[in-house]
């Protein structure tokens, strides 16, 4: 999937040719980059796996796969499910050597991550304005993700507008302001300590009067256990709904790839509070593998939409279950 395909409502005619060329270049380098960026620790575990593997498929191999999955933060339940399914398939297909075994493993994981309807992985920007609400716990990269999405939209000929709804963290507004300047888009903000619902109200109003296409709303990071802050977020959502029926069109939960099993709790709580429509998995350029998204998708059915694989603007990428599963858990087949 390419970026212009991620955004439903971007007319191909509006996309400059340079963007297509850029996408083509990114695509060619993507698997390698993913592998490089995603695979740093994977190398360690998978190489161990490789070295330890004899020709055959036996009990010990499954145990090693279990460890690989646990080490990737897939979690105990998810690991048991994946390994059971893998075993079932390998028995049925009479798989007895390493290469097809690894291939099958990646396939099982991709299967868990693939939504029934691939359309749900896209981000619908047909409404004018489209409102995208960004939520998550502290320090996952909400503001940075907004900056990068805004940049993409701009590239595609859309007019983004960002709203500084994080009125709590010191200098959060300034941080988004830097991004707005970098991307060259409008920003709606108020002084720190203001009511986030009020800023958001102004933001949506401004987008309508100024004819912006997509409103990207930043919110303060909050732990899902903080009842009052979660209520505040519910209120922000209600304000948007009231002001613009059908909005927010997208509520994206930003999850840090280093997150362990608590990521599932985060997704549950945010889903309940503001009906999360998709997950953005950030910081995959470290050695963390973000396996918690397997549990999130499997348990809650929330599609993973975007992944962050580096600090550069173009390092926010569409999520592709197969590429992701192969880059992290799979065989060495690099054809994308």
């Amino acid at each position: 999937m390419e970026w212009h395909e991620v955004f439903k409502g971007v007319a191909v005619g509006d996309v400059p040719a340079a963007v297509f060329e850029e996408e083509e270049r990114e695509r060619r380098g993507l698997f390698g980059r993913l592998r490089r960026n995603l695979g740093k620790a994977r190398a360690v575990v998978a190489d161990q796996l490789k070295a330890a593997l004899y020709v055959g498929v036996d009990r010990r191999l499954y145990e090693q796969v279990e460890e690989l999955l646990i080490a990737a933060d897939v979690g105990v339940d998810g690991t048991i499910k994946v390994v059971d399914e893998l075993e079932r398939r390998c028995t049925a297909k009479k798989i007895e050597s390493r290469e097809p075994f690894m291939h099958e493993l990646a396939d099982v994981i991709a299967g868990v991550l693939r939504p029934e309807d691939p359309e749900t992985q896209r981000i619908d920007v047909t409404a004018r304005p489209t409102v995208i609400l960004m939520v998550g716990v502290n320090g996952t990269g909400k503001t940075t993700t907004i900056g990068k999405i805004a940049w993409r939209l701009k590239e595609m000929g859309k007019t983004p507008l960002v709203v500084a709804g994080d009125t709590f963290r010191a200098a959060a507004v300034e941080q988004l302001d830097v991004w707005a300047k970098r991307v060259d888009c409008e920003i709606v903000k108020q002084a720190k300590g203001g009511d986030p619902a009020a800023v958001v109200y102004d933001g949506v109003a401004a987008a309508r009067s100024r004819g912006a296409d997509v409103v990207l709303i930043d919110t303060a990071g909050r732990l899902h256990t903080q009842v009052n802050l979660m209520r505040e977020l519910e209120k922000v959502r209600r304000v948007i709904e009231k002001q613009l029926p059908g909005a927010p069109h997208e509520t994206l939960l930003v999850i840090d790839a280093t997150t362990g099993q608590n990521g599932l709790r985060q997704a549950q709580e945010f889903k309940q509070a503001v009906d999360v429509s998709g997950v953005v998995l950030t910081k995959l350029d470290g050695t963390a593998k973000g396996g918690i998204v397997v549990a999130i998708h499997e348990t809650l059915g929330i599609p993973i939409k975007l992944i962050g694989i580096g600090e550069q603007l173009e390092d926010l990428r569409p999520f592709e279950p197969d590429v992701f599963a192969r880059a992290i858990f799979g065989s060495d087949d690099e054809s994308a």
Partner: protein
Amino acid sequence: MFDALTDRLQGVMQSLKGHGKLTAEDVDAAMREIRLALLEADVNFKVVREFVAHVKERALGAEVMESLTPAQQVVKIVNEQLVELMGSSDSRLAFSGHPPTVILLAGLQGSGKTTTCAKLAKLLKKDGKSPVLIAADVYRPAAIDQLQTLGAQINVPVYAVGADVDPVDIARDGVKYAREHGDVAIVDTAGRLHIDEELMGELVRIRDAVKPHNVLLVVDAMTGQDAVNAADEFRKHVDLDGVVLTKLDGDARGGAALSVRAVTGKPIKFVSTGEKLDDFDVFHPDRMASRILGMGDVLSLIEKAGEAIDEKQAAEMEAKLRRAEFTFEDFLDQLKQVRKMGSLSSILGMLPGVPGMKELKNVQVDDGQIDRIEAMIFSMTAQERRHPDVIDGSRRRRIAGGSGTSIQDVNQLLKQYREMQKMLKAFSSGRMKGFHLPGMSG
């Protein structure tokens, strides 16, 4: 914070308690549960393996088999092993005889370094030090503004020279500045990936330039299996002295604490437990282990209470309680004292038995409730506060209007007040002997 782990272990121990003595199968079953619980708590699988092996070895040993209460012995062993893994004593910062003492904070992006700098500074200030913050994160947009804002909030000088200067120079000059303006220099650095050789190299240069007395790694308590990789790389590059564990106010089981400790061999020195700049504590490994096992963090609570509660006031309050003369004015005083101790949720988490109590799982503590109660009491006249019986319908309307609450809220508060009065009368007349906290027995 370690609720689920506590649940699991308590479940295991409960089943062990059922038998008189432990068999080898019992131990195996218990170890399996402990292993799964630790994995679900995000303890690194290698650390889990070692931990379980140690516990099993000791559990199978004579001390358990010959013991009359084998189950308690297993709890004790797990507890001891946890304490051992997390370090067995309080950990302090190293202070230099020639100020300024330099503290360097490092960590991954989003772990909470900048906020931790301010919280640490506030804590040090309370201890009579004069900290200075140094803004050496030149990469994240507005990180310097953030530190400046926080510094202003806690009234601590911030050395900031913008984002166009080499962070190594900022750190070096910042320490010089700190020598003139304080006695502790806290250096905030940019978040960096442990595999980013360039930025790790920069961190090494910062360290060499400022020769810190304490290098602290800031770790998010929600981190999963990868915590060991990051911690190990930071350790190799800059030789850590300790760890700060952040975002412990969430419901993450915090297995990263065990992992990081095991892989770095360095103590966790502080924990960050809330949004407020006061929500920052010294880490107590022994207390934390007790807490994992559901014994509660009573010592921490007592310490907090000691800091917050004025003894004379407390004595007066006790006398009043005995006479059952508890007015809304006293109520307000109580609220103030409770507030000084931190958020209600963090206090609840420290009570014995509470983290393990199933029926309290879904109880949400709303700190906003206290705001409302305070607002209602503030809207009462002095007479109403002292003699709540005079509060009639029209007074209730006025109080609701004045505090921005509803009449139902006011009714609720009055009802609670009356119930409290009744209970106090029962106490003072000695009808409720043997009152004890739930969860303490069994």
